[in-house]
């Protein structure tokens, strides 16, 4: 029993000395493969996990509270800090939710650029997954190769918006910038680079690797019913044989016009999920290749025309008095969406990222709830870790692909 006093405070209700044979250990919050700030309290019987209790909140910044105290445009850069591995997908999910509330649609060129950025972010995130997952399991060299390609993708993001991690590359109603000259060609060469490396490096290093298969096969098995019940989405759900991808089923942006497949695995284990991530990268490259010719066929307009909500283009603000007045009101007071509530799901690289926004007609959201996929995948850990061996715990945390920016928000 702990004896708390001023110098040794009573931090957590943990009992390390028990009569039975089990041992309680703290996995994290500083464990290198805890993917951030996950504290996992594990009760072990020998090397087997009897009970797992994921403890989160070490990265809680109150982003939902901040949303209630910021105008809609002010909050957009904050969404970068949710899933900081692929921040454009958060910006986009938020912007789409507000756009649905306002009833506006981005112009065609903005849609092409947004879809490009979303898929580029998917590749960035999946490369990061494969790098860290392989590193956690013990394959060091994959990490180095995957991070090399991720750097190229981040260079592309940097050329577009100037930032490598916190992109804020999407605005409510469109995108802020057109693609710089030569960017599309760089994207095309990046696509072929990723495709080549996918085939010749990652698959060659991992797919039939005996150690990799032994570490991943039949580890972290989760049935389809369990996955649905625990709120799993994205590769976690498709890895259990449920064919559900929001890009296909509830298409947003240009996904209804694009030709791509949804890989599904019915293996239900970590190896199946790893295969899904690899296949999805290939599909993202396929989508990007289709988007490149679409870009040149679009009109140059980048932001939706909705003067009540969105500022006019810079030339109009500089030349027309009324546009300047509206811009001033929109910047100082913020836009006032109609009263109503909306829940908009998008397929982020990690699963269903949805924003629930309740508007009372004020410039500040009355309530904003961010439905983060990683939050529910973390909840799942308390079930799938039970009965596994301590060596597989790292593999299972890796395969859930949780990012603590969006778990704790």
């Amino acid at each position, binding site marked *: 029993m702990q004896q708390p006093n*001023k110098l040794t*405070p009573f931090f*957590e*209700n943990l009992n390390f000395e028990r009569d039975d044979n089990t041992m309680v250990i703290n996995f994290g919050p500083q464990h290198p493969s805890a993917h951030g700030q996950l504290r996992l309290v594990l009760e072990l019987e020998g090397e087997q996990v009897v009970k797992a209790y994921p403890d*989160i*909140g070490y990265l*809680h910044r*109150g982003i*939902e*509270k*901040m949303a*209630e*105290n*910021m105008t809609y445009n002010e909050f957009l850069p904050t969404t970068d800090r949710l899933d900081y591995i692929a921040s454009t997908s958060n910006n986009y999910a938020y912007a789409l939710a507000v756009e*649905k*509330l306002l*009833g506006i649609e981005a112009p065609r060129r903005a849609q092409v650029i947004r879809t490009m950025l979303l898929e580029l972010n998917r590749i960035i995130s999946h490369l990061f997954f494969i790098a860290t997952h392989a590193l956690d399991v013990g394959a060091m060299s994959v990490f180095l190769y995957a991070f090399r390609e991720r750097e190229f993708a981040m*260079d592309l993001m940097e050329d577009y918006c100037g930032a490598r991690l916190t992109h804020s590359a999407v605005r409510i109603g469109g995108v802020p910038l057109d693609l710089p000259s030569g960017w599309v060609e760089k994207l095309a060469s990046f696509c072929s680079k990723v495709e080549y490396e996918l085939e010749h490096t990652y698959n060659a290093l991992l797919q039939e690797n005996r150690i990799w298969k032994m570490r991943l096969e039949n580890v972290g098995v989760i049935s389809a019913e*369990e996955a*649905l*019940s*625990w*709120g799993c*989405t994205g590769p976690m759900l498709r890895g259990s044989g*449920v064919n*559900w991808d929001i890009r296909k*089923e*509830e298409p947003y942006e240009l996904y209804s016009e694009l030709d791509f497949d949804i890989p599904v695995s019915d293996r239900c284990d970590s190896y199946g999920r790893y295969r899904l991530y690899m296949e999805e990268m290939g599909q993202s490259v396929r989508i990007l290749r289709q988007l490149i010719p679409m870009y040149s066929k679009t009109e140059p307009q980048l932001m939706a025309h909705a003067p009540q909500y969105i500022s006019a283009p810079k030339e109009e603000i500089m030349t027309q008095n009324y546009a300047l007045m509206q811009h001033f009101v929109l910047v*100082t*007071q*913020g836009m*006032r969406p*109609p*009263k*109503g*509530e*909306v*829940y908009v*799901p998008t397929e982020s690289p990690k699963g*269903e990222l*949805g924003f*629930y926004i*309740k508007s*009372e*007609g*004020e*410039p*500040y959201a*009355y*309530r904003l*709830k961010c*439905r983060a996929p990683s*939050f*529910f995948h*973390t*909840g799942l850990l*308390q*079930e799938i870790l039970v009965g596994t061996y301590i060596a597989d715990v790292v593999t299972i945390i890796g395969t859930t692909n949780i990012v603590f920016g969006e778990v*704790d*928000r």
Partner: protein
Amino acid sequence: MRKYTPKDNVQGKSYYTDRFWVAPRVPRMEVEEGSHFANVLKALGKKAKETYIEIGTLVIHIDAKKNLEIIKILKEKCGYTQCSEQSAVDYLANDGEFELFYQLLNITEAKRIRVVCRLKKGAAIESITPLFKSANFAEREMFDMFGIYVNNHPFLKRILMPDDWHGHPLLKTYPLHGDEAASWYEVDKIFGKEYRDVIGPENRDPSRIDRYDTKRFSRVGYEVPFGADISEGEKENPIEYSETILVDYTKDSGKQLDERR
């Protein structure tokens, strides 16, 4: 006289609102006959109090006491096999109630519904964890953020905030920068409440920087002896680089890459 600020909602407010401005409402559609949503409403019968379609989602207002029963019907008879999200909205200042919502998803039909119920302050809601395990974390978060108690939850405990936290952060009465207890949280926890006076408000923030405190801080390029008084300003102390060890990149010694590889 000081401007009156309402204490029941201390969140950000617009500094100016036109007194004749009336916010429009997002259009609410009726459920069409023969659609999937009409079948859902038929299955619920009179249990659904108010129903409409808002931005593609069917919204069903129900009685908070019947939440488990109704969501069970939706799951088992209408195929809503996933609970995407579950949380609350604070309407205590207006109505003395919370608005709870359950966002459900039907994977075979690709349809979403939102089940909404109102809960009086201090009342508890029945847990839906027997139906959806994802509600385990979601309901814990709702309890943590709003203080709404959930009956028959397997492990109702704070999830994001520390266990001994005072207050529920997403309430409209909770200020953005935290309340009194939040600002003294570390001091209370490590030293005890009686040390608040000893430590004082100026020292409770570990990231606080005092421009004129030369005992704990120094400025690059303006170094002074330990504890010197610099209230009158300090002398500039230019940085000198050793040419033999360090390369001064301000001169034309570096090679500039004009093209990314």
